[in-house]
């Protein structure tokens, strides 16, 4: 799901990184957000709403709406649309409100 050819833009991608979504190994690039990397791996579902447990994806991609929150390296409610991907990150689909550690 990556754009390989574009009439106007060229994408200079950073170093390839490995991360894990619910335990499954995936690849992304340095300099991109967690959500962009997940999306490039063809996954749209990022979590569930806390009350009605409805599936959630991203909506605004610039940190306004909080629809993309996931648990990252054990920390709940991370806005994945503005947080950068790091090598070895463990990202989990968030199923409830999350707790402070």
């Amino acid at each position, binding site marked *: 799901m990556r754009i390989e050819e574009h009439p106007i833009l060229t994408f200079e991608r950073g170093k390839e990184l490995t991360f894990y979504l619910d335990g499954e190994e995936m690849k992304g690039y340095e300099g*991109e957000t967690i959500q962009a990397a997940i999306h490039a791996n063809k996954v749209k579902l990022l979590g569930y709403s806390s009350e009605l447990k409805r599936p959630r*994806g991203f909506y605004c991609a*610039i940190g306004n709406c909080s629809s993309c929150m996931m648990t990252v390296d054990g920390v709940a409610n991370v806005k994945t649309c503005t947080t950068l991907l790091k090598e070895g990150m463990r990202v989990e689909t968030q199923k409830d409100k999350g707790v402070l550690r």
Partner: protein
Amino acid sequence: MRETEVLIIGGGPAGLCAAVSALESGASVTILERNRRLGGQLVKQTHMFFGSKEQYASFRGIDIPAILLEKLEKYGDKLRVETDCTALGIYEDGVVTALFGEERYVKYLPKAIVVATGASEKALAFENNDLPGIYGAGAVQTLMNVYGVKPGNKVLMVGAGNIGLIVSYQLMQAGVEVVAVLDAAPKIGGYCVHASKIRRAGVPILVSHTVTRALGDKTLEGAIVCEMDEKFNVIEGTEKRYDCDVMCISVGLTPLTELLGMAGCEMKYVPELSGIVPARNKAYMTSRDGIFVAGDVSGIEEASAAMVEGYLAGLHCAAYAGYKSENFAQKVEDLEGQLAKLRGGPSGAHILRGIQKNVKED
């Protein structure tokens, strides 16, 4: 506590231009930008801008921030730019709190503030509108043009204003199929040039149509689209199903005014300016002394107008902080003239009606 004479919140076109004119007036300036790069909405606009030459018409939006940053370079230590830094609150005593990265909190005590936080995308109410795959059109633009990732394979675009049309075209440039563009209004809202490009590519633009339901279990698989009558009621029996894995919602933006509301600035609902906006005077100052506004945060318009408003707010704000620019009156008159020219057309007349409701005669 960090000191700065002028603090600018938001590093989009409005904030950057406010910085230019505040620095030119002699004030020291700090810009806080929550993103990792400056430029606001411009960083994803790959199309040629319209407007007038002073505001870089016929440049691509993505190339404009560099031009503005070049104007800022010569000020050296008088300017501090903090990216990945979100302003969190403006307090009664004028202190502004900011979050650097994820955990470092910093306080500022500026003499004057320009809030230029821009806007956020509106959502649309219909059954299952929260399914993953239903995204803001600007969000899809960020995903594609900043990160080089496709949102999906088949996109239904809801909204035929300029953003809906431009993002539809950019989706095609990225190699994504657009199944249709629809709009509830009986007429296309965006410019003809953009609409023609899309039609030429064979994508239908359906006016007087809306989406009533999204289909899918965990992610979007399709949508039910209906025709609407002139009173915007759905016409029974016109349901059609479109297969799509992405739906873009492009039904307008609304000012991002939380900081101003919390700061106790007087707020007003002005439909022509697309939502709740801070009341201001002709010098771009809100009801709170020393807090100024510019750009989309005080009414949704265009980057061209946001830049000119930024220059104006920067001049007034610096003057408030004790740095009245040389030829102040002349500069203000020039810039106000540019704004009047930009607002000369029919959409400008609409904005001017809103501004009239919102701007106090000193």
